[in-house]
């Protein structure tokens, strides 16, 4: 259970208000009730006293004339006062004249005590009053008043106070509930802001101000405090950061110094004041040909031997000079370092004392570098200069303003201007009419660092002749890498241009004849198709009638006649085969045909073997095949492909029975098929020609149209593949071709499916 201390402020406020108000009301109530009972006693005393006096006064006559009835009447008037318990009128001698009692009870009317007295007891008030007539006491009146009224009043007032308290409490509760918001809301806002700040450490949070009272001041003060903290926090952070940066910087400076020394391109050696080596970087060690461990502590002169390039006399080491003179020394050129292994290296070197500011020299540092490359570069530039001088090409340098700064003899010859004439003059002197715009454009390009290669254009010589030139222009940079000009190499290509024009003409002619050739090729194909188709008719007639002739009159012919007729039949048969193949070949080239469908090559092979059944049987050929895939293709294309290849393998067999193996493999995303045989093979020089239509390597001894392989090539090429042969004459050939992988290949049919159609080799 939460103690009051831990209650939220709004509850606290309500509680405080309720308790305060309740206490105040209760105290006032108690005070009023208490005061009332006190005041009421006083009032009651006065009242009863007055009443007693009146009654006493009224009783004078009755007492004077000894009239109890009248006295009783006087007393009976007290009935109106319900709290009068009893009343007694005594004569002067203490005897009772008249008496009165509430509700008929008999009053005790004890002998009167002290007259003129008001006496309170616990339950009642007794008032005793002398009855005086003409200054003389003639009797006594005693009244007894019931104090129950005080209790009643107290109860009534107490009840009223409680009721008021209760009603007030309810009203106060509602009012305070409303009013507490004006205090509690800003405070809880402030509290949540505080919580947010302490949780997030975001000192940018500000509490919201609701009023201009003390809470407002508190919010302002809180916000000001936050602003202060925020400022201090930021300041502290930046101080921390900058300190960290400084540390990092110092660290990196140290690192970079060390790294610099270690990895600097120059060789660095430091010595102590005695000239003993304390440090040598890698470059130095490499130049001196010393291992790292060897040099430290050695006297510099033992390691660093230098001589004059020309005189070859030893040169004093700069360290000695530095130690002597205490200042930076730079050695003259032509110094050669003799390394440990005797290698001579031209170097530049310098030395400097090591000392703290104003302090004594603590040692020296020697910096030197291999200048072999520079020597070489010097030589190269001399060479280049001579090349420029002797070059047949024009080599020109110009500034970005187009003013010529260099003009070689080649340029003099090419353009006819001497270098004297051109240097300091604008390059536009050699611009050809119609080409004036080029030069500023070229300079723009150069300015932006670009270069121009083999730009063919026209320039004009001093004599006014126009020449074709090829220009190669590159920017010239100063030491700071800024473009300051352009170097231009111009080559006279007038002759080349003429040759090129000639070539272009030849090319165009060639394209023309090529087109013609393609056209005539198409015509030829169309002709071949029609011819092969239409020629079949008469050929069929010749065949059939020759056969009819043999059948009908064969017996009537002599031997020679039969040979003639056989030749006719054979010739027509051959021609028919030729025409059929030609037709197949031209059809392959001509029509796009029907859409491809899934073709199972195993089935194709089955059909091919069926077609070749007779020759397989005759030659005792063995055809083997691995499982073949299914392709998206036309069966009408694939059957002749395989049939021609297998047929050829049988046809061009050696002395042994043909053994033919059909296989397939994946290669470069294609399927590569191979039809291998053990036949006579093909000489390498014919491995291309065999695919040309009607090209045959063999005479009539082996029948054939010369179109089979051409058909194969067409089929394969139609599917985007290629076909070639690998062969060893006398040992057999392998025809290879590629076809695109099957789109929906569902794997391979069982091998046995078609092997059963041929002789099993195993």
């Amino acid at each position, binding site marked *: 259970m939460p103690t009051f201390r831990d209650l939220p402020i709004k509850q606290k406020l309500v509680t405080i208000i309720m308790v305060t108000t309740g206490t105040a009301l209760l105290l006032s109530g108690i005070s009023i009730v208490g005061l009332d009972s006190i005041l009421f006693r006083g009032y009651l005393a006065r009242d009863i006293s007055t009443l007693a006096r009146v009654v006493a006064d009224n009783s*004078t*006559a*009755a007492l*004077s*004339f*000894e009239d109890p009835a*009248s006295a009783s009447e006087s007393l009976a008037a007290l009935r109106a006062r319900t709290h009068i318990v009893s009343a007694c009128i005594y*004569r*002067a001698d203490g005897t009772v004249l008249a008496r009165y009692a509430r509700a008929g009870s008999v009053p005790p009317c004890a002998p009167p005590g002290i007259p003129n007295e008001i006496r309170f007891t616990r339950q009642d008030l007794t008032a005793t009053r002398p009855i005086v*007539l003409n200054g003389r006491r003639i009797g006594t009146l005693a009244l007894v008043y019931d104090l129950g009224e005080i209790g009643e009043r107290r109860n009534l007032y107490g009840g009223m106070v409680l009721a008021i308290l209760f009603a007030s409490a309810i009203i106060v509760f509602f009012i305070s509930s409303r009013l507490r918001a004006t205090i509690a809301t800003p405070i809880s806002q402030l509290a949540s802001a505080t919580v947010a700040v302490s949780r997030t450490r975001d000192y940018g949070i500000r509490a919201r101000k609701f009023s201009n009272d003390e809470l407002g001041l508190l919010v302002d003060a809180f916000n000001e405090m936050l602003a202060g903290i925020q400022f201090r926090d930021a300041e502290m952070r930046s101080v921390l950061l900058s300190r960290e940066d400084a540390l990092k910087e110092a660290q990196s400076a140290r690192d970079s110094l060390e790294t610099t020394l270690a990895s600097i391109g120059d060789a660095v050696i430091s010595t102590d004041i005695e000239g003993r080596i304390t440090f040598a970087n890698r470059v130095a060690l490499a130049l001196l040909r010393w291992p790292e461990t060897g040099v430290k502590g050695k006297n510099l002169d033992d390691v660093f031997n230098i001589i004059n390039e020309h005189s070859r006399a030893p040169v004093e080491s700069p360290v000695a000079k530095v130690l002597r003179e205490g200042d930076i020394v730079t050695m003259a050129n032509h110094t050669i370092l003799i390394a440990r292994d005797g290698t001579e290296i031209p170097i530049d070197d310098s030395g400097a004392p090591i000392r703290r500011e104003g302090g004594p020299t603590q040692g020296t540092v020697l910096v030197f570098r291999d200048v072999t490359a520079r020597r070489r570069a010097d030589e190269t530039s001399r060479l280049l200069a001579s090349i420029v001088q002797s070059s047949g090409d024009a080599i020109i340098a110009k500034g970005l303003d187009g003013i010529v700064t260099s003009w070689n003899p080649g340029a003099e010859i090419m353009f006819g201007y001497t270098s004297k004439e051109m240097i300091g003059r604008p390059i536009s002197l050699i611009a050809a009419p119609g080409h004036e715009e080029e030069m500023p454009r070229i300079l723009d390009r150069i300015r932006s660092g670009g270069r121009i290669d083999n730009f063919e254009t026209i320039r004009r010589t001093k004599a006014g002749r126009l020449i074709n030139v090829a220009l190669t222009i590159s920017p010239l940079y100063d030491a700071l890498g800024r473009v300051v000009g352009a170097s231009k190499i111009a080559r006279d290509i007038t002759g080349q241009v003429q040759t090129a024009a000639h070539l272009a003409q030849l090319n165009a002619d060639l394209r023309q004849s090529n087109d013609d050739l393609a056209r005539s090729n198409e015509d030829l194909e169309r002709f071949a198709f029609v011819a092969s188709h239409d020629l079949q008719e008469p050929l069929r007639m010749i065949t059939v009638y020759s056969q009819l002739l043999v059948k009908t009159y064969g017996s009537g012919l002599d031997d020679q006649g039969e040979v003639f007729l056989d030749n006719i039949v054979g010739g027509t048969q051959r021609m028919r085969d030729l025409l059929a193949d030609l037709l197949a070949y031209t059809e392959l080239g001509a029509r796009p045909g029907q859409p491809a469908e899934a073709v199972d090559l195993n089935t194709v092979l089955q059909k091919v073997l069926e077609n070749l059944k007779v020759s397989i049987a005759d030659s005792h050929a063995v055809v083997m095949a691995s499982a073949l895939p299914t392709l998206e293709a036309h069966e009408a294309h694939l059957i002749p492909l395989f049939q021609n290849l297998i047929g050829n393998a049988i046809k061009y067999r050696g002395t042994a029975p043909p053994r033919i193996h059909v296989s397939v493999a994946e290669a470069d995303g294609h399927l590569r098929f191979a039809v291998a045989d053990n036949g006579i093979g093909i000489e390498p020089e014919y491995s291309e020609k065999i695919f040309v239509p009607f090209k045959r390597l063999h005479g009539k001894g082996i029948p054939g149209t010369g179109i089979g392989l051409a058909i194969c090539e067409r089929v394969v090429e139609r599917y985007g593949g290629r076909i070639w042969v690998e062969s060893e004459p006398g040992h057999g050939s392998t025809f290879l071709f590629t076809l695109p992988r099957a789109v929906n290949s569902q794997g391979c049919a069982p091998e046995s499916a078609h092997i059963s159609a041929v002789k099993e080799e195993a």
Partner: protein
Amino acid sequence: MVLPSLLLPGLAAEPQPALEYQVRAAFLLNFTRFIEWPPPAEADPASSIAICIVGDDPFGAALDQIVAGETLQGRKLTVRRVRRPVPSSCQVAYISRVEKGVDNLLASIPPGILTVSEGDGFLRDGGMIAFVLENHRVRFDINQSSAMKAGVRINSKLLNVARSVEK
């Protein structure tokens, strides 16, 4: 005050004739306490208030004993025995029962004097207060109109105690 102590035994028992007059004397004195006389009668504060007994004196020494030393508002009370006509210096005129021609007497009495007697006829004749015996007790009747005519004001307390009041 001795009167009540004297009266008490009387009230308890049958009053003796002498005792009866002692009570009447006390009553007579006590009447003066409840009467306001008109101003001329009080012109002289030093002068006494006189209770005059007209004619026969039934009280003997009782009245004198009772009145002796009594004062009323600082004025001395005295008892005087007078003859007809009743002098105007009297404030109270007690007319004996035996007196004849009471009505004439009353008519001759000057205003401002309280007239007291006994018997029923007194009030009819124009008297103001008449003693009566009731159950052996001394009581009195009052004729208020007569008193008012004479300018004598009778305190209401006295009226309350009277047996009957004629208005």
